């Protein structure tokens, strides 16, 4: 393998890791506030559809992005209504949201476009095009560093850079602001937050909405940057991989970056090689597909450090009278 091949694999890892990273950070905000969210998949799917559909109709990718985020936030609010307001089971609500998105996206796509549950292929104005960072062309011929800058760092869509910028931003919000402190507190001990005179309900809704916005970005990236349009079930389990990455990262932002890059790398390899030849044994492609899930089970089993979730996760908060 030469430098170019390595760079191409890493480049596609970054692209594939981006939706995982955004969804993972989305889950991080929600779960740190004590709201479990297995509906990441559904929210991404809804955002993917609406961003592609509206971008196809209006011809503007930015209006598409806004529509995608709006759809994702709407599902977030439904999750909030069920799990915060009516104190329902958060897991069941998440399952319902995943099915709702899986069904509605195809239903609406078929009604609007009659193309077998997909949106029309997006033209260039309906997509996020790759950005060429300043100096990339000029530095291209510099040995080693030039190709790395040109291939790997430059030439992604804006959402990729947004996703990577979200990592330090999330860290800063969670650990350096008053809102972040309260958010983490509400996921560990909501009674204490309530006693301090801060509304648990409002904080949790804020977290759920942030989660919706980030899932919206993830879905829009899938349909308008990674691919040119929506196809049925295009998230293909990415929401669950993001959930796996979240556990892998033990609910911390920087580790979320590393975990999603690792899973993106696995996907890139699985996409490029049908099977991986390690010299001693040859791993089949299906094993590569299953690897993120297997790794998550191993992590959950606590064999590589124990993953301790936020303490109040999954429990509805009942205010004392």
């Amino acid at each position, binding site marked *: 393998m030469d430098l170019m091949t390595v760079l191409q694999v890493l480049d596609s890892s970054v692209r594939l890791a981006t939706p995982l990273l955004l969804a993972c950070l989305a889950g991080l905000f929600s779960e740190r506030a004590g709201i479990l969210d297995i509906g990441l998949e559904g929210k991404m799917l809804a955002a993917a559809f609406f961003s592609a559909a509206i971008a196809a109709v209006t011809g503007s990718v930015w209006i598409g992005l806004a529509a995608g985020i709006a759809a994702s936030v709407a599902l977030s609010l439904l999750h909030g209504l069920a799990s915060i307001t009516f104190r*329902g089971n958060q897991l069941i609500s998440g399952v319902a949201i995943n*099915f709702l998105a*899986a069904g509605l996206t195809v*239903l609406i796509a*078929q009604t609007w476009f009659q193309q077998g549950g997909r949106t029309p292929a997006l033209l260039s104005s309906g997509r996020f095009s790759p950005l060429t960072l300043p100096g990339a062309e000029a530095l291209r011929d510099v040995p080693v560093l030039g190709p790395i800058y040109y291939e790997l760092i430059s030439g992604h869509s804006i959402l990729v850079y947004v996703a990577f910028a979200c990592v330090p931003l999330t860290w800063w919000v969670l650990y350096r602001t008053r809102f972040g402190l309260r958010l983490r507190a509400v996921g560990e001990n909501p009674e204490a937050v309530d006693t301090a005179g801060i509304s648990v309900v409002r904080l949790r809704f804020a977290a759920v909405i942030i989660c919706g916005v980030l899932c919206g970005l993830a879905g829009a990236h899938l349909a308008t940057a990674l691919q040119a349009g929506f196809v049925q079930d295009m998230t293909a389990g990415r929401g669950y991989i993001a959930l796996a990455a979240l556990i892998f990262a033990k609910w911390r932002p920087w580790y979320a970056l590393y975990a999603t890059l690792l899973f993106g790398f696995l996907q890139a390899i699985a996409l490029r090689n049908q099977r991986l030849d390690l010299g001693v044994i040859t791993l089949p492609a299906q094993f590569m597909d299953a690897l993120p899930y297997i790794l998550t*089970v191993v992590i959950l089993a606590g064999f590589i450090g124990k993953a301790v979730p936020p303490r109040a996760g999954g429990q509805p908060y009942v205010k004392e009278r």
Partner: protein
Amino acid sequence: MERMPRWADVILIPLISLLLAAIISGLVIVAIGEDPFKALNLMVKGALGSSYGWGYTLYYATNFMFTGLAVAVAFHARLFNIGGEGQAMLGGLGVALVCLYLPWPHWSLALIGASLGAALFGAAWAFLPAILQAKRGSHIVITTIMFNFIAAAFLNYLLVGALKPRGAMDPTSARFPAETNLPSLHDILLPLGINFSRAAPANVSFLVAVLACVLVWMLIWRTRLGYEIRAFGHSEPAALYAGISPTKITVTAMMISGALAGMMAINNVMGEAERLVLNATEGAGFIGIAVALMGRSHPFGVFLAAILFGFLYQGGAELALWTSIPRELIIVIQALVILFTGALDNMVRMPLERIFMAIRRRRA
């Protein structure tokens, strides 16, 4: 004090939730420009209007009874088994191995063998998530989701490799020998003088599913193990205090759950396809969640809810055939049922409780 009478809890709330789901589904149909009443009429005619329609309705219902019972048993131990899909896939593998590699003189013996194979493989696939939950505290919802994906990859691997007959193109196993083919409802009802549709896939495993409902009822309410499972589900500390081992209950309940989900394969793999195909489960494992919630985790409720979902599936297929409404409408309805009977349960329950309390106060 009970806040409301039992009948309201068992019958009224599910009915109101179902009604809400139906109203929203109707609105969805209106939104895509079709007439909901015409659609309902078409569904009823297509699913229940002929023995052909009934044959499909009962075929789907058989799948959902097994997966619904699987989720229900786990619910009684307050465990949420989302892994029914993967367990049913592995059950299919168990059925395929039993049918392909063991010689069977008669279908009845093959059915027993295949049921055991399916249950064994399904239970085995539930074992690891269960033991990890009990011993290491790994969240069973996450691990069972992960095991669904691992199962899909594993079956994919086998079906393009070891299980595929030499020279075949499709990723499917070889056809099962004729001795293992199960009699359809047509074959069973003909001696009784009823001419049931020959083309419909409903088969003898429907009766096995009904039997499974009865056995699960006996297990949960008439045995010591069932009592322990319910006690554990109500309160883990209390169960522990009473000398019930959490590990034992978690693992047993999950393995029974996995076995039931796996047994779905005697219907779809052995009864219908008569070979193992890719993605044989078609999401039935997830519908089990809706069925168990709708049926309030009671085997009789699961039975009724499974028939309802069988009706929805067959009716939905008819709709897709005759109107512009896509099949995915069923997934939306399924989502709404899960939402209203599961997650938004309190939205219906809280106002009702208030009404019943007010009535009681006036009487007192």
